[in-house]
């Protein structure tokens, strides 16, 4: 049981992924679908940072750190990259939705004809 509790961050990641998938599959409003993608991105980011956490470690910055027991730096770098990638894709998706709305007057996946096949 205590092991189960200790893994709460990982469980939260799993729950976030499920919520994101639910939003993406069940919502017909395209903006909501994009929100699902954003939550999925957040879940993956949280997963990466969680992977790098070391019990009792400090941030991997030597300036004024108390010692060299540090959390892992690589996942943090990966997460930085993935956050910026996330905002880039989100912006492009939202721009496309704005254009779809300009053409059809709808942001609903089914009303605006073919989107989502």
């Amino acid at each position: 049981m205590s092991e189960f509790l200790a893994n709460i961050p990982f469980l939260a990641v799993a729950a976030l992924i499920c919520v994101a998938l639910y939003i993406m599959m069940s919502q017909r409003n395209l903006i909501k679908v994009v929100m699902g993608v954003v939550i999925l991105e957040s879940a993956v980011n949280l997963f990466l940072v969680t992977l790098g956490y070391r019990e009792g470690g400090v941030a991997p910055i030597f300036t004024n750190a108390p010692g060299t027991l540090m959390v892992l730096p690589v996942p943090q770098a990966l997460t930085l990259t993935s956050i910026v990638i996330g905002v880039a894709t989100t912006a492009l998706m939202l721009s496309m939705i704005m254009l779809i709305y300009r053409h059809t007057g709808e942001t609903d996946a089914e009303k605006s004809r073919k989107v989502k096949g």
Partner: protein
Amino acid sequence: MSKIVRTVAKLLTPAILLFGLYVIMHGHITPGGGFQGGAVFASGVALLIVAFGAGRVEQFLKEHQLSMLESGGGLLFIGLAFAGLATAFFYNFLVGSPIFGHVPAFGPNPGDIWTGGTIPLMNVAVGMKVIAGLSAIVLVMALASSKQGEDE
């Protein structure tokens, strides 16, 4: 947007922008760097756009200027990567040289801004790029959005 928001934006924006620049410059010794600083700076620009409207911001911050700045940042960044090509692409050739070349001792230390080799320069390049890229995205989307609003 209401007057309060504008006043707050007027007071807050310079601080946000300055903090963004600070974060970019000290990326190699304190938490932060080009991305974080650029994001903070761009969020200041976003605040301006929300408070004063995209039209007014566009009067002194043109989209094509941002495009140029972004291209410039990208070229500077990849140029620094190319500069290491004598050894390998992305080789940190400035470590040990007089410019940013000091090497700190291993372990915790108070930090020295003249360290990091190409890292501070890359931070600046990426900072330029992120500021320009994110601001351009927000600005263009806001302009398109306000235009779309008028159409209806």
